[in-house]
């Protein structure tokens, strides 16, 4: 076991403790503080802009009003957020898994890729609104499933596209190496293509995270839900129809907040998975 250790040349750090202190510290790090500072600045400018231009709140409410509304209506908005979140997550996970599988299928043979990639594009460029009735009819009256399918369609393509690109970008020498050692298709996939495609896949996830969310919102527009089990889209629409624009902005704020949270999580995941080797995440010392 001695061979796995580098202790004598490693500067001693109390590892487990250090790690946790670091993690907590992260919340006070520039990564978090910088966007917050900019956020405050933006809010300030927004507030001043609204005040100075005298734009009426039914067009663009000031941030304070929006936040007040958010706090006041938290009781109805938050459950709606949870439902949207549920749809988003389900669709996102489905898109991640299926996108990865499809990309893997595509890279099994140039023929499959050439033959089916255009159909992935068709899926991407078909307006949900046009096919929503078909989906609803097809799924009978399982509205949740219909919503998830719509959001999934929206989120799928970037994952397929980026992952396929990644799976096709493997280092030539390494692919030779695997060929040499007679790696099976499956082994090449598992030990070479997938790790090499990881940065691209994660990049695709970061794009799709937001799309799954926006897909969930759009899906609710086109598949029509309401009532107790309705998500943020319903809140946005109703607030808009009822000219409760501050409330609409509060709901929008929640949507985008959720989007940013998803993005931040995916970025953290990406950094974690790539920190040991990929240039985009490694901290280089020279």
């Amino acid at each position, binding site marked *: 076991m001695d061979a796995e250790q580098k202790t004598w040349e490693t500067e001693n750090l109390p590892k487990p403790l250090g790690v946790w202190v670091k993690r907590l510290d992260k919340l006070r790090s520039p990564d978090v503080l910088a966007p917050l500072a900019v956020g405050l600045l933006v809010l300030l400018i927004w507030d001043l802009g609204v005040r100075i231009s005298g734009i*009426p709140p*039914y*067009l663009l409410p000031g941030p304070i009003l929006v936040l007040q509304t958010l706090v006041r209506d938290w009781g*109805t908005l938050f459950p709606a957020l949870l439902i949207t979140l549920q749809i988003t997550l389900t669709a996102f996970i489905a898109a991640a898994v299926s996108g990865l599988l499809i990309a893997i299928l595509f890279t099994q043979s140039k023929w499959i890729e050439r033959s089916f990639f255009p159909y992935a594009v068709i899926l991407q460029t078909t307006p949900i*609104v046009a096919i*929503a*009735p*078909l989906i*609803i*009819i097809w799924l*009978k*009256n399982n509205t949740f499933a219909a919503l998830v399918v719509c959001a999934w369609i929206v989120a799928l393509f970037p994952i397929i596209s980026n992952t396929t690109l990644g799976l096709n970008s493997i280092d030539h020498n390494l692919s030779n190496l695997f060929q040499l050692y007679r790696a099976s298709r499956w082994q090449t996939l598992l030990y070479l293509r997938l790790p090499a495609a990881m940065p691209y896949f994660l990049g695709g996830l970061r794009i799709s995270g937001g799309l799954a969310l926006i897909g969930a919102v759009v899906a609710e*527009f*086109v*598949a*029509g*839900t*309401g*009532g*107790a089990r309705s998500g943020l889209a*319903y*809140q946005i*629409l*109703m*607030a*808009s*129809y*009822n*000219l409760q*624009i501050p409330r609409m902005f509060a709901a929008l704020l929640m949507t985008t907040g959720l989007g940013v949270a998803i993005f931040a999580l995916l970025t953290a995941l990406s950094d974690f998975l790539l920190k040991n080797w990929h240039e985009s995440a490694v901290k280089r010392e020279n």
Partner: protein
Amino acid sequence: NGNPTATNSSPSPNGSLDRVTYGTNWYAQAEHGGFYQAVATGIYRDHGLDVTIRMGGPQVNGTQLLMGGAVDFFMGYGSDALKAIQENIPKVTVAAIFQKDPQVLIAHPDVGVSSLEDLRGKPILVSAAANTTYWPFLQAEFGFTDDQKRPYNFNLGPFLADKGVAQQGYLSSEPYKIQKEAGFEPVVILLADQGYTPYSTTIETRQEVVANNPDLVQRFVDASIKGWYSYLDNPEPGNQLIKQDNPEMTDDVLANGLAKLKEYGIVLSGEAQSQGIGAMTDERWQSFFDIMAQAGVLPQNLDYRQAYTLQFVNKGVDYYKS
């Protein structure tokens, strides 16, 4: 799962109910009151029906849901019914709850607009759907032009921000919101009073349902109409259900909606006063068809009579009140 078209069932002797889904055209509101009332007060149940109301929404395509079997009855619209015939879609209107279409145009007060003629050449916010309904009528009858159109997304902001524009609206909805949120009373022009005369908030179903299961249709129509009488009388039970389906709905909006329905005789006017709610006549269908054909929306030779059947309505007020 209880698709009523499959079996020719009549009110079952053993008391089991026929499951039926009714699709509306929007989030629950006063304009849907009678249907909710019929659910709430058990009128449907008394007619052997277990009715689920499925709300529509801004981009929900109800006809497809109806024809695909996702709903059994659908809240339709006169011009829609005629277009279905043109496209050989076998759906049929079996009752018309609204004698008048609540479609209005709204303008700012004190800008000198009081009639449709005054709006000629002015920018108007209209929804995309208007292009297939009242807009061709306005073009044909009042000389409106396409470059007057501005997109309307059911958000009042753009209208309020610009005194120069007018916009479309729903009688019971936008005018009240404007009054409430912006504090002024807009000019409201009801298109039904200007010669635009489609039935609206109708009950549509597939032709095959009418053919195979007329009894079910009759029961649904009867119960719905009874629901409407009941709602006009005491809306409370229906309103409860509406608020349950659409939590954003408030009592004052519901009250206003009902008041407008009554004030303008949307539900109870014309033949409905004698034949009962839901009444339809051949003449009315024909005159509306003529208007649309004149506007170029429908071909002159369309067999518009297929769009509806009078079989289930016009029973007289007493029939429903008994």
